[in-house]
């Protein structure tokens, strides 16, 4: 097999708190190609967020390694931008400032001030948030906050975009809107995306592959499912598609029949 863009090799994570050691992940192997959209799904507490944080560099591996674009990951960095579940925008900064903080830091030495301003605006346009540039996070809705979080992550031009249950806290309609936005952005930028989710429909609609995790402790990858659906995908058309229906059914079967919590 050719070298993958993002390679998770034999990753195990053990948290030690005093004398108590809990093994969260064990022997996780996963290869992600450039431009691929991969979802990680599993029951609560199965360590899927831990796996994402390992790739982000926020949690150190106990065994194994993560290799991104031929380089080992051992610290957080803007090449692996994270969209956190609860948006994590800085409340004292405006929408524009939240994104420009990232842009100025990542491109401070590369782009001129005018280019950085332009790039900040461009990314806020991608997520359709230019109408609220000078609003503070407390003044916009949850869905909008998440859009700004996505814009901030995209603005770092990451090699891999990490989404940690990005739509988990949103209502169903807002979630659908944001999923469509993410699909559009993925179609135009061809980012490599790793997304943690607990929503079966979301995983089936957005992903090229769905990684299903077994229950923790000592969670591992139980099964990987290819979703061979044509892109662009339309949520209405896809609902009738046998490939989609099959993918959905397979994930549900894995989660609820074989690995019931």
């Amino acid at each position, binding site marked *: 097999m050719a070298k993958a863009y993002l390679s998770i090799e034999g990753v195990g994570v053990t948290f030690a708190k005093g004398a108590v050691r809990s093994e969260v992940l064990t022997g996780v192997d996963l290869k992600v190609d450039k431009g691929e959209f991969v979802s990680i799904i599993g029951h609560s507490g199965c360590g899927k967020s831990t796996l994402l944080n390992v790739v982000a560099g926020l949690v150190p591996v106990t065994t194994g390694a993560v290799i991104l674009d031929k380089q080992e990951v051992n610290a*957080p960095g803007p090449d692996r931008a994270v969209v956190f579940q609860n948006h994590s925008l800085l409340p004292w900064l405006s929408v524009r400032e939240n994104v420009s903080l990232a842009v100025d830091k990542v491109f401070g030495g590369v782009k001129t001030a005018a280019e950085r301003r332009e790039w900040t605006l461009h990314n806020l346009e991608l997520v359709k948030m230019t109408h609220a540039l000078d609003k503070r996070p407390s003044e916009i809705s949850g869905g909008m906050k998440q859009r700004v979080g996505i814009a901030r992550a995209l603005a770092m031009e990451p090699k891999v975009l990490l989404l940690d249950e990005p739509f988990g806290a949103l209502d169903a309609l807002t979630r659908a809107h944001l999923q469509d936005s993410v699909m559009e952005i993925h179609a135009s930028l061809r980012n490599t995306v790793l997304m943690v989710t607990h929503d079966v429909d979301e995983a089936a609609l957005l992903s090229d592959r769905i990684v299903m995790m077994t229950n923790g402790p000592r969670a591992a990858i139980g099964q990987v499912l290819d979703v061979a659906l044509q892109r662009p995908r339309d949520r209405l058309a896809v609902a009738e598609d046998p490939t989609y229906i099959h993918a959905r059914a397979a994930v549900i079967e894995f989660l609820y029949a074989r690995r019931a919590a």
Partner: protein
Amino acid sequence: MTFPKPSFSPAEPVAAPVIAPPPPEPRASRGSEIVRRAGATAAAVVPPLLTVLAILGLWQAAIGDSYGGLPSPVQVWTESKDLILNPFFDHGGVDKGLFWHVLTSLKRVGVGFSVSAVCGVMLGVLIGSNRWAHRGLDPIFQVLRTVPPLAWLPISLAAFREAQPSALFVIFITSIWPIIINTAVGVRNIPTDYVNVAKVLRLSPVEYFFKILLPATTPYIFTGLRIGIGMSWLAIVASEMLLGGVGVGFFIWDQYNASRISDIIVALAWVGLTGFFLDRLVALLGHIVSRGNAAS
């Protein structure tokens, strides 16, 4: 005399334009706006005013016109009329109007409190962000902060051998503890999300300090500063009583020795109102600095 408007009025004006029909009659709405504002001001000013009147009435009724001991409000007025009506006179020495005494005390508080604000925030950041600094210093701070201001005075007099720096030190040592402790709590409560954002962006320690730590901790810092300025005002009055010279604390002590109790009562009103405005000033500053995000 004016009272600062309360930051949250019960009748929020924001909702009104949304419900109102699109073309409101400008004149009628302006008139009703004035009435509403006047009503809100009256609601804020009238109850405390009535309370003050009631207290003065009770006080007058309880004491009457018996001479000796605590004077009644009427006696305070007749005996200290000059002091109340003219706070700006200056007859040289310590024979000055209350404004000058309060101003001298405020200058001392200004210096002592500024030093304790800077040192307090720095120490608070240190023990909030460093586990070993916390373990080493926090127990000591918890013990020292319970020492009363006046207990520091003989020690600082022995150390500095002069009244002025001793008074400043007492203000400093009294007001620094709430600043340290609140800052440390704020630093320890910085949400993990913000820290993760900083890590992903690879902010340098200096960038982290100014772009994440300081703004995230601002509401806590200002809570500490508010408590601190209140305590430093308590400390100045107490320490000036022992140190002498110009200052509202010494004024009170001096009038006590001269048995002019009614002058002391006037001075107490000045002390209370000054303390109140100091507190409001720091709260306002916190509101401006944190751009309205403070929890105050």
